């Protein structure tokens, strides 16, 4: 018992002596929470600046422009005299897209000549591009429909008849559990835990590696009575407590205070967060046991942490990736956490559908147990290489 207490005391002293621990465990996570809350504060992007090239200059073309401007996501920020001026503005980054109404559009529509309007979207800003595309396409459909409706009314059709004629089949879209189409639901709920995972695994490898670097590894093992399991456990428990608290702050902040969708209730997400913290520590220990050099193990943790933002499938679905990479995504704890989040919190399905993902996180946490003898050997025998 006393041995444990002495080990704990030693651990606390080590943590207190290095400000970087407090930076990574407390300041940086809080900073990340604040950053993402602020970034997405305004909700979905609205009033994205687009340009207008109206060469027609009639009541009809102005009403198209007015209606486009009235869409929530689009704001006509500038009128341009011709297409090449608008293109230059696009290249400068003044607008994300522009809408082009050529000369004679109204006349053509009245004479039933099928004039063509067009819109140009800058897809090198993918999200802004997709959002403006939706509005502009909708507007063009409406413009076309309005023209046809005028003809129908002139022929004496009622409104119901006109609509049934114009749009016999209508789409009734139900985006289940994200009816606002809020991209932030995927961003904040995956990137923030991903950053936490990055901090946890990096700090685990760092705290193990500095024992070798400072040349205190033998003293550490001696204090633990030569038991590597005891030494590692006592080292990681204080970090676990702090990181778990940070994780709990995140869960409460996002699900209880900011009311992100959480159909499974907060305790389940707290449980998933606990597993995530353990998996992060397991990953850090695993990398350090495999590559007992401070620099290499930390670089691996950084690689894993940063790449997992892509492989978790939050923005780009795993289904669309190369089959070999699809398999590899299983090796990233964030992928499993993301699927748990989607299954339990967002969709509200029973947890059994994500059983494999819970199990996988558990495996990440338990994996280093297999490598304990190797870890002990390297802790005792490896020399620090800068």
């Amino acid at each position, binding site marked *: 018992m006393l041995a444990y207490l002495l080990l704990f005391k030693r651990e606390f002293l080590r943590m207190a002596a290095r400000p970087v621990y407090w930076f990574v465990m407390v300041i940086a996570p809080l900073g990340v929470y604040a950053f993402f809350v*602020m970034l997405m504060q305004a909700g979905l992007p609205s009033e994205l600046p687009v340009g207008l090239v109206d060469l027609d200059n009639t009541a009809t073309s102005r009403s198209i422009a007015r209606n486009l401007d009235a869409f929530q996501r689009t704001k006509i920020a500038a009128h341009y005299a011709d297409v090449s001026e608008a293109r230059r503005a696009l*290249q400068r980054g003044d607008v994300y897209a522009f809408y082009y109404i050529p000369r004679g559009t109204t006349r053509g529509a009245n004479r039933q000549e099928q004039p063509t*309007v067009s819109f140009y979207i800058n897809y090198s800003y*993918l999200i802004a591009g997709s959002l403006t595309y939706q509005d502009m396409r909708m507007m063009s459909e409406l413009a076309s429909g309005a023209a046809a409706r005028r003809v129908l009314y002139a022929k004496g059709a009622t409104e119901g008849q006109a609509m049934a004629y114009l*749009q016999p089949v209508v789409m009734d879209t139900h985006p289940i559990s994200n009816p606002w189409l809020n991209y932030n639901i995927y961003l904040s709920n995956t990137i923030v835990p991903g950053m936490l995972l990055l901090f946890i695994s990096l700090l685990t490898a760092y705290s193990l590696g500095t024992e070798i670097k400072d040349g205190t590894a033998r003293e550490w093992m001696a204090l633990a009575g030569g038991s590597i399991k005891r030494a590692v456990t006592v080292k990681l428990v204080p970090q676990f407590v702090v990181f778990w608290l940070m994780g709990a702050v995140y869960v409460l902040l996002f699900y209880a205070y900011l009311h992100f969708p959480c159909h499974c209730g907060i305790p389940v997400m707290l449980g998933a967060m606990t597993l995530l913290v353990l998996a992060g520590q397991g990953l850090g220990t695993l990398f350090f046991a495999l590559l007992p050099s401070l620099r290499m193990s930390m670089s691996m943790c950084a690689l894993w942490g940063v790449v997992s933002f892509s492989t978790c499938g939050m923005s780009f679905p795993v289904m*669309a990736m190369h089959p070999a*990479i699809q398999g590899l995504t299983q090796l990233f704890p964030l992928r499993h956490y993301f699927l748990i989040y989607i299954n339990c919190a967002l969709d509200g399905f029973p947890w059994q559908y994500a059983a494999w993902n819970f199990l996988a996180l558990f495996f990440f946490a338990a994996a280093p147990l297999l490598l304990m003898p190797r870890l002990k050997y390297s802790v005792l025998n490896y020399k620090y290489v800068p």
Partner: protein
Amino acid sequence: MIRQYYARYWKESFRSFLYIFNREMRNVFRDEGVILFFIVVPVFYPILYSSIYTTETIREVPVAVVDDSRSALSREYVRKVDATPDVSVLRVCANLDEAREMVRRREVYGIVNIPRSFSADIARGQQTRVSLFCDMSGLLYYKAILVANTDVSLTLNADIKIARAGNTTAEQDRVTEYPIAYTSVNLYNPQGGMASFLLPAVLILILQQTLILGVGLLAGTARETNRLHELIPVERSHHGLLRIVFGKALVYLLIYVAQSVIALGVIPRIFSLPQIGNPVTIAFFLAPFLLAITFFAMTLSALIRERENVILIIVFASVPLLFLSGISWPASAMPGWLKLISYIFPSTFGINGFVHINTMGADLLDVRGEWDALWVQSAVYFLTCCLTFRYKILRARVRTYRLYKEERASREVRVG
């Protein structure tokens, strides 16, 4: 006499500049960690990212169909949906419950439900509604399912309209279909792909982050190995602030000019990312960017006390920096003060300017704002770098002098 003095001064300055340059170059190539960040990561990461996003878009999203109408028209609808590149119909289910279970098992990502009255409604000349239920585990699934169904319903609508209109000529059919037609043009990223959108930004960010990591690692090592743990040792050769700053900066610049050519010239070509910029324009644009990140990294390196701390502090910043650049989350939707913060980092201007030139074919005049900002940053960070280095040099001298005095005092005591 005076001329001789200046000649000697310049000769000596140049010699110690060369000495510092050589020493830093040796430090870089003797340190495996620095080689990892300066040489390996800027080549390896872009390849890794490109292979993750190489398919660019999502195709053939599996959906389940619940066809309550079971008519010729509803089957035509399903066939047309299946034929789109975005969606593939995995199974026609008997009822919604069966389809819902498939969603829960993540076998399909959406349900298309055709109502019982589908073809009867159309025959009667009434509107009918097809319901889409989308699993929102990713926005791209939703987008694929919605786009496929909207396209099919629009063509089906056009066919029905034309059949009812009783036109006599094909021209009339065309006008009936769309009184005002529209075309949509995807500029600069025609397939709307993920790689073409994200990678140019990531490439620039990787250059900045690896440079900061490498320089920080070097600074950490210097402070760990030097006497008194100072960033700049007190030595004869380490006189003269500008010599130190320029000597070190030149090493990093030389390496990163080569890395820029690989990361921004070769990698996009291998993975056929958009690359329509003029290389000369890119070179002109990169000049202030490389200067800014070099002096930025050198300024930051003064904060690094231990070698490995830099990994803890710098790596995680990459993600917020990517968002601050406004490339993924639109900058116009960002609160103003976050935008102000983003102006601190060279990556914000570097990413936007590079994307404009490389992906959108802008010329230097179009990115004048970013270019000027990068020059301002270069100047500011050069100054901050000089100031911090000067402070460090002075502190090192004061400490050394104090130590020297203490040693002498203790020696005198001993002698006395």
